[in-house]
């Protein structure tokens, strides 16, 4: 129930936003402004997807090394496991950087004001 309410409010905000822009700006300028935002949404989605793909490969490699090492020398399995966990957390942090950039693109609208000025919208 809450999800449909939030999506409805979001749709209202989008419509009202574009209506407000249309009242004072040209139709092509308004479409251009929306296109910039569309491209940032697509970029955010692809960015985090590619980062997750790379992280999956890298962490798989790390675990492969750790398991092979443990198979050769089961007595060292404690130290190897600790080193593996540390390595996994460091690899994961690269994916987290991409996630933070994607969230910034989606929720913080960087460069919204300069782009609006460049497109000639009244800000």
């Amino acid at each position, binding site marked *: 129930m*809450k999800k449909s309410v939030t999506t409805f409010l979001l749709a209202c905000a989008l419509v009202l936003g574009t209506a407000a822009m249309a009242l004072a700006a040209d139709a092509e300028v308004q479409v251009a402004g929306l296109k910039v935002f569309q491209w940032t949404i697509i970029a955010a989605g692809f960015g985090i997807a590619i980062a997750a793909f790379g992280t999956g490969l890298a962490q798989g490699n790390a675990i492969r090394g750790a398991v092979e090492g443990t198979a050769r020398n089961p007595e060292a399995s404690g130290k190897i496991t600790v080193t593996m966990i*540390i390595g996994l957390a460091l690899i994961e*942090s690269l994916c*987290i950087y991409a996630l933070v950039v994607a969230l910034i693109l989606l929720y913080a609208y960087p460069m919204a004001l300069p782009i609006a000025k460049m497109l000639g919208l009244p800000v």
Partner: protein
Amino acid sequence: MEHPFMILVAILETIGLGHFAHAYPHVLYTWLVMVVLIILAWLAGRNTQMIPGKMQNVFEVVLDGIEGFQVDMMGEEGRPYFPLIATIGIYIFISNTMGLIPGMMSPTSNINTTLSCAIVTFVATHYVGIKCHGLKYVKHFMGPLLPLAPLMIPIEIISHLARVLSLTLRLFGNIMGEDLVLAILFILFGQYFVPLPMMFLGLFTSFVQAFIFALLSMLYISGALEEAH
């Protein structure tokens, strides 16, 4: 993303400090973590005995584990920095796990808290380096060969600043991401207990992230303590 319900914020609203509570919930919850840690430490250290009671035993295990690991990593000269590392580790662990309790928020899910922890580590690293080596600490930045120094100094400075950024973003991204996923799962599927596996994963990553932060602080401080090449 609507505002989640937080217990301390609601309590402060009844007092009348609603503006402060809504703007800075992470500060409120940091105070809560401080109070919890101080009370636990006071309870554990109240009357220490040779054969420890329950509370003292738990804390001895925790601190012994951290100290053993630290001396393993840093060597004997790193022993004076044990309070700093242990405080960072325990504080970040308690802060991270607090977000899993419904009605509370982790202070580390806000970038201000994690940035402050990273700045503490950064300042501690350089303070330790200057205290141990004096002005010769600059040799750490100059690289292996003297003619390479004009190339190495900007690279080293940028890499030191990147350490602050990476510590901040790693902790912030992990904890905020987990909080976000939990909030979304609560909103969508809360009644089928779907957030429960995510909470187990959250407990694990809270511990791992606190451990990694403390471990990297140890490595940076020991890098500042060692002799420059």
